[in-house]
């Protein structure tokens, strides 16, 4: 077991040394998601610009490597993007974990495609995304 398709370097690295973790004192949006089955919890803090794009986002994640890496890769990927773009990325990630084939353009997020063999773990990768979408929807509804 020298290498593992699912636990690739990018996943292990981001879980161990996240690039977008921590608090964001200037945050105007805060959200969270949790999975009571395994105790995973993601807290999100973000600032939007005047056009509704994510100007800055940080996460505080307690959970497994899949969840922590997903949150960190997500934060990097959605910075500068609006709600519609986040929705498209989320849909592509769902397609990847359900079919095992990542749509072109998913980039590093394609690392999670092997989750199609691990039905019970898909939610770990998707939890940060559902938390983000809930947070953005709540903001829109306000």
């Amino acid at each position: 077991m020298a290498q593992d398709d699912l636990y690739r370097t990018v996943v292990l690295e981001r879980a161990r040394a996240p690039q977008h973790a921590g608090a964001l004192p200037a945050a105007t949006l805060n959200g969270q998601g949790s999975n009571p089955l395994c105790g995973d919890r993601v807290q999100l803090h973000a600032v939007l610009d005047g056009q509704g794009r994510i100007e800055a986002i940080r996460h505080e994640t307690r959970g497994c490597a899949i969840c922590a890496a997903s949150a960190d890769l997500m934060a990097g990927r959605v910075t500068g993007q609006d709600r519609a773009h986040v929705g498209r990325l989320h849909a592509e990630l769902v397609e990847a974990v359900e079919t095992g084939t990542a749509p072109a353009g998913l980039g590093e997020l394609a690392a999670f495609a092997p989750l199609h063999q691990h039905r019970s773990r898909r939610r770990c990768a998707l939890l940060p995304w559902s938390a983000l979408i809930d947070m953005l929807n709540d903001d829109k509804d306000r």
Partner: protein
Amino acid sequence: MDQSVITPTDAAGSLRHVRADFPILSQKVHGKDLVFLDSAASAQKPRQVIDCMADTMRTQYANIHRGLYWMSERTTEAYEAVRDQVARFLGAAAREEIVFTRNSTEAINLVAHSYGGLLKPGQVVLVSEMEHHANLVPWQMLRDRGGIELRITPITDDGALDMEALEANLADGRVALVAITHMSNVLGTITDARAIIDMAHAAGAKVLLDGSQLAVHRRVNVQELGADFYVVTGHKLYGPTGIGVLWARRELLEAMPPFLGGGDMISTVSFERSTWANVPHKFEAGTPAIIETIGLGAALAYIESIGFDAIGAHEDALTAYALEALGNVNGLKVIGTAPQRGGVISFIMKDVHPHDIATLLDRNGIAVRAGHHCAEPLMRRLGVTATARASFGIYTTPEEIDFLAATLEQIRGFFV
């Protein structure tokens, strides 16, 4: 080699021959040989059980008890013969003390409903901190509808039942029922049932033992134990799902009102009122799990053909072997170190989440469980959100334990 010298490894591998009886063990998972270490959740099935159930459906099946024709009468005989078999298996005083249920959970719910219905507000049901949700939630439901008090007896830091706390909890004489596991599905702890029962009876309380785990590994004799209620489930006993057993003292069953109403559990029925069948049929409404019950009979016969002396020796040696092998894995901590324990080992690893452990083991063909193991309050007591758990069956070998330990060491290498 001197045949009189039995090393732990010899004993740990002593039931290797039974593996040929379990067709599933030759399956591949993710292209790897299946190493099945989740028998505490549900055990695999020997061909003796599989064939018996298929043969029943092929050659000797009809609804039971009321059929006046040959096929129904033969099926009834086969079904009721399992009641005799279970009575012997558990050391019951009479076949009428054996009630077939869907599983242990339903058996406990039956007691909570029917025996619980006889309790008065202010009386106490006492459970332990290490119960499976199946032996906690039914009592919470009884508390909320019946005004009884639910009292929790703590465990010690090593995962044994705190017997001093149990005695203190019994002291006010209000405890009507002590409902405690006979072997923890998380910690592997085997509780001192005799001492618990003596203590409870001295305080005027009845005792229910959840034997879901223990009955797989040790001979149970409910009369020698002096228990009042005992529950087991077929699918952990190498039998099918959908069949469990409640044993209770006959006088208790006779005093208890029925659980579910319907066919088979009645004596007479009119629009004004119905009267109940004698025990145990009073508690068996509707067409039962006929095929599964007959399959349970085949499973018990299979277990008895191996014998609990051999099963116990294998498991003790394998558990000791596994505790040592896992103890040598860097960063691994076994949760639950009570002196009396069976082949269920929970563990955590520094810097690696239990779900990542389980997925990476799975990708190497090793099936373990990870999560709260239907014991959330126990997880909080232990200060963890989840653990990984390896559990053993008669077919588990020391080589599988070696592979588990080596793979865990590799997994740890990924994360540090």
